[in-house]
């Protein structure tokens, strides 16, 4: 189990640093080896990947303004701004510490809540889910600094892009015009690359990056304790909701903090990162207790563990997987050490990045796009989508395009929840 914790941690560090990769790719790459090991080792590996990647995806978010995955968007927005102002060290340190607190809070909540877990799931019915998503949409719309009209437009654009294709329940087509490629839908990776990463890289192109400052002591930004605890709490509950998970948890926490606290930039990073790690771990509960994977990477883990004869239940989780809890503190301590110790090294990388910004941007964009194209079965369609959306994304570079991502992510979930809610309340 220790070996798999080490492999998982290293894998999480690496794939967290590669934008667009994350836990799914980290698990998929090692699938053949994982299928030959026990269920407890698989879960140990996956938990280590989740923890480690959530530390390092924020490093690319802070240094380059590019989130390692969708969970680090809030950190990319706020952390990179601090980095550009020369306060990257505080952002990274805050990220490391708040992530650690998030893990500790999630593990504590996990232990406390496990015996009564069925009551938690009873709370999250479709009506509550619709309310949560509605609040999220309202927050995204009204907490933005750009014109609300633009935000609403971008959010709707994301929603429309998500709806293109075939409805998985009714099989009705939407905006396909009889075209077989459009029937496949617009892949999320192409939206993420074209409409978020490209405009962000285009913005970076026009921005001067100061030489990074080195940190010489282990310091925490002022006033981040409360936002960190708040983020841990919000993230944990968001992590339990299928589809919402830690992606919305980190965004919601950052926005709540922005609304409630003065000088909120650093505090919002702390809240987002605590929520991110806390939510990543709590999202395992529906899988472990109800055998319901709620993220793509959990699906892989689910099948791997089933293949190894594991039966998902509260009893088995306690009896067979409890030992993982004893290893988590060591994984977390290592990640905390790495994200602090590695900062100066990453600062050097950032300076290198300043000099070779265009080349590095091309490499990053090419790598993410190539990985996405190779993973997607109809390669040409993914390439076309990335190309078209990149052109559109470039033309939108003066806007904050993150509402498109949330529109894409939330619209289907909201629509399906709303339909069920109307039936339930009828």
């Amino acid at each position, binding site marked *: 189990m220790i070996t798999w914790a080490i492999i998982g941690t290293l894998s999480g560090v690496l794939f967290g640093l590669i934008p667009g990769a994350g836990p799914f790719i980290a698990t998929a790459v090692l699938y053949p080896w994982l299928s030959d090991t026990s269920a407890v080792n698989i879960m140990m590996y996956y938990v280590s990947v989740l923890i480690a990647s959530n530390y390092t995806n924020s490093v690319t978010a802070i240094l380059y303004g590019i989130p390692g995955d969708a969970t680090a968007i809030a950190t990319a927005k706020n952390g990179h701004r601090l980095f550009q102002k020369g306060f990257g060290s505080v952002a990274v340190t805050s990220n490391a510490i708040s992530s650690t607190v998030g893990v500790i809070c999630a593990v504590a909540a996990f232990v406390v809540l496990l015996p009564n877990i069925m009551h938690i799931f009873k709370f999250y019915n479709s009506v509550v889910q619709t309310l949560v998503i509605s609040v999220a949409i309202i927050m995204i719309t009204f907490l933005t600094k750009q014109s609300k009209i633009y935000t609403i437009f971008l959010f709707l654009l994301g929603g429309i892009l998500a709806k293109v294709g075939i409805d998985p329940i009714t*099989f009705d087509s939407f905006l396909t015009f009889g075209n077989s490629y459009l029937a496949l839908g617009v892949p999320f990776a192409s939206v993420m690359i074209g409409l978020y990463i490209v405009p962000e890289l285009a913005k970076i192109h026009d921005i001067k990056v100061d030489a990074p400052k080195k940190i010489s002591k282990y310091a925490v930004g002022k006033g981040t304790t409360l936002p960190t605890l708040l983020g841990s709490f919000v993230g944990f509950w968001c992590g339990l909701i299928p589809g919402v998970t830690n992606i919305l948890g980190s965004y919601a926490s950052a926005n709540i903090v922005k609304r409630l606290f003065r000088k909120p930039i650093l505090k919002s990073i702390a809240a987002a990162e605590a929520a991110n790690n806390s939510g990543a771990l709590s999202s395992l509960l529906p899988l472990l207790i109800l055998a319901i994977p709620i993220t793509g990477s959990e699906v892989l883990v689910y099948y791997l563990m089933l293949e190894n004869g594991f039966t998902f239940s509260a009893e088995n989780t306690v009896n067979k997987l409890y030992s993982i809890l004893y290893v988590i503190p060591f994984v977390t301590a290592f990640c905390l050490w790495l994200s602090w110790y590695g900062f100066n090294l990453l600062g050097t990388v950032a300076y290198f990045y300043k000099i070779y910004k265009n080349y590095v941007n091309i490499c990053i964009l090419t790598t993410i796009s190539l990985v996405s194209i190779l993973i997607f079965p109809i390669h040409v369609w993914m390439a076309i989508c990335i190309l078209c959306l990149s052109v559109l994304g470039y033309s939108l570079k003066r806007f904050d395009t993150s509402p498109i991502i949330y529109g894409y992510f939330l619209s289907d979930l909201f629509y399906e929840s709303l*339909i069920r809610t109307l039936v339930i309340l009828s």
Partner: protein
Amino acid sequence: MKFITTIMAILFASTVYAADLEIVNPGSEEGAFRQVLTTLGEKVDHAFVQANNPVTAYSFIEGSDAPVLTIWSSEWPGDPELKSPVVDESNLVALMTYETMMCSRKFSSLQDLKGKTVKIATWGSEPVAKFLGNLEDATGATFVVVPFGGSGSTTKGYLAGDADTVFTITTRQTAIEEDAKTKCFAFSSNGDLGFRFVDAIVTVRSDKMLTEKLRELIAMLSSEQSWLDKFSGTSTYVGGSTKNIAMYKEAVVNFSK
């Protein structure tokens, strides 16, 4: 803009790729189809395609040059708006039948449903709606369907209290009975419910040897205890025998609009 154009030129040049076998899943990510195909995929070299619905899955199958392995529900060929691959003796690898059940935290038998309005969590698909319509006539109940996309989300929704009753496949029985107040009272395997899912595991563009190899693989796997545990409540019939083809065609007719 120049560097984006450069990148895209590189990307288009890198899109030529072919796999020996493509496994196409027309079901949801967390559903039973995915479970079966993933189990098979672990034993053969393949590229996996998660299509999420039969329309997209058919597009993938049609657009590919490689041999394809997929599962096709007998619900779909009866829908004139859906294109389906031909299922015959040459390409049918195996049939899987999924027994269904009805569970509730409010009712304990089909007789209890008489004259009641029942909020039931299940699939939003047409054949299930048709079956429930027939059951309404037989029991005197009125079903209000709370629609979900697959067996996984149906289970989650029921446990969260979206409905007081659930109609789903028996492989989900353990998860559903995690709710202590729930009783599973009607099963298709006992003849209580006249509805079960019949799905064909088929190849497309495969040569005879590959199809035969896949049949042997399923025959071996389906006799193992792990398969029986994982897919409890299902039956697997290997091969393209006349009997299996007839069973599939009969299910298609039953599901037709």
